């Protein structure tokens, strides 16, 4: 996980980096919704081209490096394609050696996996141009008007969750190497194997959590925190308007 750069933040000086996080989140949600709605091949191609342009020009993210990391999703994409090819009923492909593969199935599978790739791209652009702190502040801002929702508490939990993920990954890899050295991998019994992962993992992470709680208590942590300040400029509204226009054309123009 530590080697994957796909959803990491890249500090850059670009249009999307300077954008107000609140507006950026809306744009991201709009893109995801449109991606899950589009049906025709031309609209897919336009969306892909648009996202590649955004990655390169508006966000200035290292496109080739991100593309390489897509390999972590390749198995998932392949599975989606294969399952759809075999499961969806339709006409068989003439002259294709494998029986059971249908034209409709391949098309549906292609669309579904393409859709997944596009959504991954949108997520990568969002997380690549927005630091986790900003994202947390944006979420807090949107939750503020909702009654009965402890927005500061939720923001703290989001932060803590992302503090814990690398801690847990370190613990897991340490544990797995220690167990490999003791030939635990030879065990076939799944009950024992879950036990051997879960038990030490929980004991270790509980201990680290205790330390963190102690540190927070020692610093008098409370929910009364300074709120983040946001500023929206005309550029942000322009980008939002442009995104809405672009997505509306893709969605409603009959390709």
């Amino acid at each position, binding site marked *: 996980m530590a080697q994957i750069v796909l959803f990491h933040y890249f500090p850059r000086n670009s249009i999307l980096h300077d954008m107000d996080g609140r507006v950026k989140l809306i744009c991201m949600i709009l893109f995801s919704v449109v991606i899950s709605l589009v049906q025709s091949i031309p609209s897919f191609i336009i969306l892909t081209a648009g996202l590649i342009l955004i990655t390169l020009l508006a966000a200035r993210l290292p496109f080739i490096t991100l593309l390489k990391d897509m390999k972590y999703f390749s198995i998932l994409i392949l599975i989606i394609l294969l399952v759809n090819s075999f499961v969806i009923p339709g006409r068989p492909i003439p002259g294709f050696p494998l029986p059971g593969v249908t034209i409709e199935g391949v098309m549906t599978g292609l669309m579904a996996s393409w859709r997944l790739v596009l959504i991954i791209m949108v997520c990568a652009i969002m997380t690549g141009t927005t630091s986790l702190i900003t994202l947390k502040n944006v979420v807090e801002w949107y939750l503020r008007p909702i009654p009965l929702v402890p927005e500061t508490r939720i923001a703290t939990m989001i932060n803590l969750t992302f503090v814990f993920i690398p801690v847990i990954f370190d613990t897991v890899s340490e544990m797995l190497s220690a167990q490999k050295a003791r030939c635990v991998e030879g065990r076939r019994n799944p009950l024992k194997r879950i036990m051997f992962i*879960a038990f030490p993992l929980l004991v270790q992470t509980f201990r680290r959590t205790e330390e963190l709680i102690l540190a927070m208590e020692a610093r008098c942590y409370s929910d009364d925190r300074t709120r983040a300040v946001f500023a929206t400029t005309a550029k942000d509204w322009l980008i939002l308007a442009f995104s809405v226009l672009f997505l509306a054309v893709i969605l409603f123009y009959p390709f």
Partner: protein
Amino acid sequence: MGESTALNLRLTVFAALFTALIIIGGYLSIPLGAVPIALADFFVMLAGLFLGKKWGLAGAALYVFLGALGLPVYAGGKAGLAVLFGPTGGFLFGYMALAFVVGLIASQKKPSVLRNLTALIAGNILLYAFGIPWLKTVLNLSWEAALTAGLTPFIPGAVIKIIVAAAIAQALLPRFNKSIADNAEQPEDEEQ
């Protein structure tokens, strides 16, 4: 001595830990025959057992929320509203129900194996009661196909996860409750 803000902070941090564990659980899987067992729902069960209904639900809900925001937290690095309302979305909502029900039934001072097992089984039934009709509706499957795709391959894994979750709760809950309460009210009964 157990004032509510200190307790609240402890449970907040532990709920965040369980959210992180659920996320990691989606990446960890153990081979069992042909079907790999992912550990996400296993940690959801533990969240219910360890944190109780309120904070267990908070941990699971935060997981679903982070994924909906577009962070790649769902199993296999997936994310977004498309997944949440896609074929397997019912299971994600089911996670919240699972954590809540497990916490509701199991939540008590002294851990009892029978009670924890009942809670886990009830929670799992609810999880699939959310997941399978959803799968059937979204993909337009017959009941038979939905059960074959969504339930049958996962039964052995679910049984194993329930057993291990109950065993872990038995071993670690006394210690956990003691550290949460942070006072001497909790008697030690580790020999059970």
